[in-house]
């Protein structure tokens, strides 16, 4: 025990170590505060949309009570992707994709990809959230704490004493590293504790997953450092090499992979779908009305009883045309979805061999801010849209008055993201990476 206490004293003796420990704790807290702000802003816009929606309905009903078709041309309904509080730790893609969508019952495809107000500079710079601190900065701290764990002994001349006096040189190095590992884990626990308080997190399974993965990730960086210092080179050399590894893993490889994915899988399907959707609807103004309505009834046979009104403008025909915007762009939409899935699978595949990328994606998945969860939300919005359509179509076609509808029932609806995490798939890459590092440092440890 005495030995560990001395190790600890030796470790925190230097001023640089103190400064970096305090700096990372502060940055961690800043990250949590920024995440909290992100959640607060979403709550504010939810409150806004709630009050707005009531007034919006009142105004529309008073303006167009006798014309429900026209009313629904203007009226929109909110559908909210209520962020998991863990999103405050890993903001992920929730800053670029809208989480509060307001949609009309017109062509869904034309509204699906509308973006929020975002400053592209903020997006490019990325969020300084806790996930950033863990993924980028903790490894640096590991490097600062360990790069000279062995070399300082050789450089100050104490290594020979150690070699004679301790039972095992390997045991000596490992216990020295262990003290540093525990020091970092203490900071990590402290930060998660602060996060729990500030973000009001429930101590559920996802929270512990996030914590556990961070623990494994830091362990991985210790094994990297162990591998490098076991060569027993000079402190300067170790620092240089460790930083090069950091630069490679955290900056260059991901950046290279992004450049690869971007140029390998462009998404022209998105633009084609946009044009197909526009043409799908607008061209119907000039084509045979009967044909449009027949096509509409093929999709919704239950509405056949409303007949084929082809004389002049009528809402049945109008909404049939709007429906065609969605129906006629289905081919392009499917191609688009396929491409996005392909891209995501490819990215995940590559990321699984690079621990930091893997961890970022796992964090986003746990926090409900990943790309695939965004797609699920869009699909749920589609279902919500369909529900609205099916509710309003017969009322419009029958020419009902707007005040016969109970508008109170249309409060903003919430979507809750589902987190599907396969434990083995998430843990394995981190553990395998650590084991690989330990195995390749085996030959070195024999020659310490």
């Amino acid at each position, binding site marked *: 025990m005495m030995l560990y206490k001395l190790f600890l004293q030796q470790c925190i003796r230097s001023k640089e170590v103190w400064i970096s420990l305090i700096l990372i704790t502060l940055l961690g807290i800043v990250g949590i505060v920024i995440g909290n702000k992100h959640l607060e802003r979403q709550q504010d816009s939810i409150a806004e949309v709630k009050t707005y929606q009531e007034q919006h309905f009142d105004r529309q009903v008073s303006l167009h009570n006798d014309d429900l078709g026209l009313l629904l041309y203007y009226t929109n309904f909110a559908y909210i992707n209520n962020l998991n509080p863990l999103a405050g730790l890993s903001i992920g893609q929730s800053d*670029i994709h809208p989480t509060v969508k307001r949609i009309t019952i017109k062509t869904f495809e034309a509204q699906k990809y509308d973006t929020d107000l975002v400053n592209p500079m903020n997006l490019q710079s990325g969020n300084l959230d806790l996930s950033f601190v863990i993924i980028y900065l903790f490894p640096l701290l590991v490097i600062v704490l360990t790069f000279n764990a062995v070399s300082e002994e050789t450089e100050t001349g104490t290594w020979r004493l150690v070699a004679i006096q301790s039972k095992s040189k390997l045991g000596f190095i490992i216990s020295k590293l262990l003290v540093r590992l525990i020091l970092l884990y203490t900071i990590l626990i402290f930060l998660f504790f602060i996060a729990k308080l500030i973000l009001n997190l429930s101590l559920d399974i996802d929270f512990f997953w996030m914590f556990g993965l961070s623990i494994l990730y830091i362990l991985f960086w210790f094994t990297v450092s162990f591998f490098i210092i076991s060569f027993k080179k000079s402190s300067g050399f170790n620092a240089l090499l460790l930083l090069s590894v950091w630069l490679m893993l955290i900056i260059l490889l991901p950046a290279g992979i992004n450049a690869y994915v971007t140029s390998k899988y462009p998404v022209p399907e998105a633009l084609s779908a*946009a044009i197909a959707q526009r043409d799908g609807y607008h061209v119907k103004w000039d084509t045979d009305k009967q044909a449009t309505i027949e096509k509409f009834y093929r999709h919704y046979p239950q509405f056949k009883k409303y007949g084929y009104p082809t004389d002049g403008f009528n809402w049945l025909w109008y909404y049939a045309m709007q429906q065609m915007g969605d129906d006629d762009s289905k081919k392009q939409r499917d191609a688009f979805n396929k491409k996005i899935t392909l891209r995501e699978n490819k990215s995940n595949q590559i990321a699984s061999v690079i621990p930091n990328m893997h961890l970022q994606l796992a964090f986003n998945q746990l926090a409900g801010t990943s790309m695939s969860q965004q797609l699920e939300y869009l699909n749920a919005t589609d279902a919500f849209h369909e529900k609205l359509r099916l509710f309003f179509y017969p009322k419009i076609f029958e020419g009902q008055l707007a005040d016969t509808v109970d508008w109170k029932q249309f409060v903003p609806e919430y979507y809750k993201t589902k987190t599907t995490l396969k434990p083995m798939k998430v843990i394995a890459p981190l553990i395998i990476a650590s084991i690989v590092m330990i195995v390749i440092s085996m030959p070195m440890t024999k020659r310490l």
Partner: protein
Amino acid sequence: MQWATIRLFAVHFWRNATAPKSFYLLFFIFILLTAYSAVSGIKNHTTQNNIRQEHQVKARQSWEANPDKHPHRMAHFGTFAFRIHPTLGIFDYGLESFTGSTVFLEAHRQNSVNFSEATFSTGILRFGELSLALLLQLVLPLMLFFIGFSSVAGDKQNGTLKILLSQGATWKETIFGKSIGLFAISLLFFTPILLVVIIALLLFENPIVNDFRWLRLLIIGMSYLVFLFIISAITVVVSASSNAPKNALLRLLGIWLLLVILLPKSAQAMGNYWFPTPSKLAFQSAIEKEVVQKGDSHNPNDPHYNHLRDSVFKVHNVSKVTDLPFNYSGFVMREGEKITAALYRKHQAKLVDIYKNQNNVTRFSSIINPFTAIKLISMTMSGTDFSSYIDFQDKTDDYRYQLAQTMNELQMEYISPKKESGSEGKTHVIGHEHWEDFQDFRHEPMAFANSMKEAFPALLSILFWAIGTMGLLLFISKRAKAI
């Protein structure tokens, strides 16, 4: 200070630095990275522009294929504007992946610019993208640190510095000589990248668009030269003020982390925190509210439009809209478009001001951070920065306005005044030749003068840094100790 001695130091530094095998390894890796970024940059540029141009043509074809119809139907048929990827985007991706590429332009509605690369990507895009500019801004400085950290501190440690100084060399000559030597090495890394960009520009020469690309490249090139000199000098200064190479290296790495990763990220985060972006709903309902106040053309009893009608009646001495010499519904829509567009622009300008305030924290941080200064110059001059994006947005909105108003005027002129409202059917139509007459949208890049104005503070700060570095070199030559 003798030039010959400085040259001697510079040449000697060059020889020493380029002698070890590890230097060639470093250089080789850098060239590989350059080749990779160049290929993916060029590939991305050509595929994106092919996709966008192809869709611009496709959208136009279906616009022109419209039969004779009511102009208001065409105003809603609308068209798409696709942002053209600038040629220098090959060099610096800038915000390219985070700005949308496509916007649907129609009457009454200002749609968002959709489909940015980032919306198609998983969270890993936030790790950054490998571009030639990234190599120069982030990787090359680090390599210069690695090459130069022991330049003076190493001599100090092994005692050669004392000998040099006692033999008549001055501190000034040593430090300037080594800085120039390191700067020369940086050119070895910089030149291939510059050549690649020049070749790419020649390859994608586009005589139709005059975007001053060569002048832009000249400014980019000059700025990077100044930047690399600043980095080289700082390396030598830090090395001279450290007593051991190891300390010099740790300090330089600390500077790199602070200036490249922490400071830029914190600056932008602070801007975002201090100047919150309004929600889309707040933005839209503020406009909606003002429209209702000013005049809502969709409200049949709106006072503004009632008043307008009465005055039109008075001028033309009629009492029914159907007696007017033009189509009144088109007239009302023209007025409505004018009001809503003006209000939208007012609020959009306010929103852009909020964004600018957010970005200003970053822009002003370039005064203390040369890395941010060069980043801003580089992307502004490449045409992939924030202002170029806003410029595109403004241009599409101008075009949208023209489209809507042209269709409204066609309606006033050619649609019978007897047709009070509605745009359905085949009777009240105009010939399809009018559709071809309305020119397609063409994305003109941002004017060079505006880019210059945008980049000016950053250019100024990099100049100050250059002067400051000179001062620092002189200062350290007086203060440095040989032991």
